């Protein structure tokens, strides 16, 4: 059986900066893969390149065995790859329902049908009470939920969540983690970029670590977090002491 996503030797440079140097990774169907690393390590570049926002300089991206390398973001969404942005990007002047309806229109041309799908997704992500509010009036936590909700309305096979827990308090973070688990239980694979290690360990089946555009380590969360290379490059000695 083909993996859900197979990235091979992906390269991306911005002028003289090599943001991705031959990065390869694989994600199985139904898996939650954590993607961690220090700031500037290439995590968001990797997501943007897989999602088609950046054109890779080399390498391939296969989705269930089909080559989708360098396709436009709209095409990627049609193939079943959804993503959220590091800084949440709702359509500020549209209501929550209008925001999600835009995404749901991917699979129908009837707005009434799309709205029905949107309402389901809104209920699932706990935004029902804010459905008719302008997204500009939402607090950070709800904007993050809206990002996720829109991605969900695309009926994707894979969702890439770029720091979707950033800026949330511990309680909101717990709710967020549960939401991601619910989404994953519905059969959607997840790539989860996060700096909060507690959340990564609690949620991810496997973790990949990037450092300076290169793959540093890969494996089960507990194994990766105990890796000396990862501690030196990213987590720091403080993390090691806190664990002990």
């Amino acid at each position, binding site marked *: 059986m083909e993996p859900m996503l197979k990235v091979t030797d992906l390269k991306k440079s911005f002028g003289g900066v090599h943001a991705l140097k031959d990065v390869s990774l694989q994600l199985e169907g139904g898996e939650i893969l954590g993607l961690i690393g220090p700031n500037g390590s290439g995590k968001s570049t990797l997501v943007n390149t897989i*999602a088609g*926002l950046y054109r890779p300089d080399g390498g391939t991206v296969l989705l269930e065995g089909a080559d989708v390398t360098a396709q*436009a*973001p*709209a095409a*990627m*969404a*049609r193939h079943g790859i*959804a*993503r959220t*942005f590091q800084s949440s*990007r*709702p*359509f*500020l*002047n*549209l209501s929550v329902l*209008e925001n999600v*309806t*835009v*995404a749901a*229109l*991917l699979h129908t*041309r*009837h*707005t009434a049908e*799309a709205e029905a799908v949107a309402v389901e997704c809104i209920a699932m992500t706990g935004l029902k009470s804010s459905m008719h509010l*302008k997204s*500009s009036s939402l607090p950070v936590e709800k904007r993050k939920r809206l990002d996720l909700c*829109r991605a969900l309305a*695309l009926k994707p096979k894979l969702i890439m969540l770029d720091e979707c827990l950033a800026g949330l308090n511990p309680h909101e973070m717990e709710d967020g983690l549960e939401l991601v688990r619910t989404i994953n239980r519905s059969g959607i694979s997840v790539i989860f970029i996060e700096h909060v290690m507690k959340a990564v360990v609690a949620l991810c089946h496997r973790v990949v670590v990037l450092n300076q555009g290169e793959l540093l380590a890969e494996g089960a969360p507990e194994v990766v977090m105990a890796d000396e290379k990862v501690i030196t490059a990213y987590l720091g000695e403080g993390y090691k002491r806190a664990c002990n």
Partner: protein
Amino acid sequence: MRPKTQRFIVPAAILVVLAIPLFVTVPYYLHIMFMVFLFATMGLGWNLIGGYGAQLSLGHSVFFAIGAYTAVLFVVYKRLTPFVGGVAGMALAVVAAVIIGLPCFRLRGPYFALATIASGEITRTLLLHSKDFTAGANGVPLAFHGNDPLFLQFSSKAPYYYLALFLLAAVFMIVRTMERAKVGRYLAAVREDQDAAESLGVKTAWVKMIAFVLSAAIVAACGVIYAFTVGYIDPDSVASVNLSIEIAVVVIVGGIGTLWGPVLGAVVIVLLTELTNMFLGGVRAGANLVLYGTLLIVVILLKPNGLISFFDKFRPKQEAEKTQVAHGTHA
């Protein structure tokens, strides 16, 4: 406005507009009304790409000129009815929109506006210098051979009035439908954030192209009606950058990205133009234009969301917010 009042006012307004030519017989007044309808229709067309799509086009006279010249030249050279020439003109405008849109939609913000100005000037220059075919700066007159509906020739202004009114009504309904359909939702997303829209499967270039093409066809149809009403066209009157700006101004003053904004904008701008011409045109050279410009600045300063925002308090909250949305003043 209360729904009951609205139910009464709208049909009453339609009846009044339909009855005007029965009581107003002065051709000049009917011509002013004709220009209001024409600019309202062009404004609705421009609004599709400039308002809903937030792509500031300052080259829409290209399509007006293509519609006008194609229909007139079909009559002059082939003696074909403007109904055929008009359809051909609209088709050519669509082709021109695709040719302009393909490279220009890669550009964003002011660069797109500059590129559309350039395309307008290219069209005007081509019309000026293709003397053998378009008579250049001399323009093309349409000889009057008596009343002939097939060739849109009437001794009275009333048929042109009704023609422009019918076109306005048809375009209004098309835009209203489009606003609520998939393409309208996608345009709103493109206006808000192109990259986010793309990530949700919106083919932004395609959506903008649909809006641009439809917008071009509508403005070309206006060009056809204008040419046969006035009976004369030349490059400066139908392909000037001034005309392109005036179409955009109608929408900006009325309320960009709204359904009624272009209609209200056309009423105000056309009346303002005519009144300043009437009272100041002969006083001192340019005095009318100074007053026109000053009044325009005052209107924009007082109501940056467009004059339609005067009516916000009479409209349901969600509708009223659309005015603010289109201007980005509600973020």
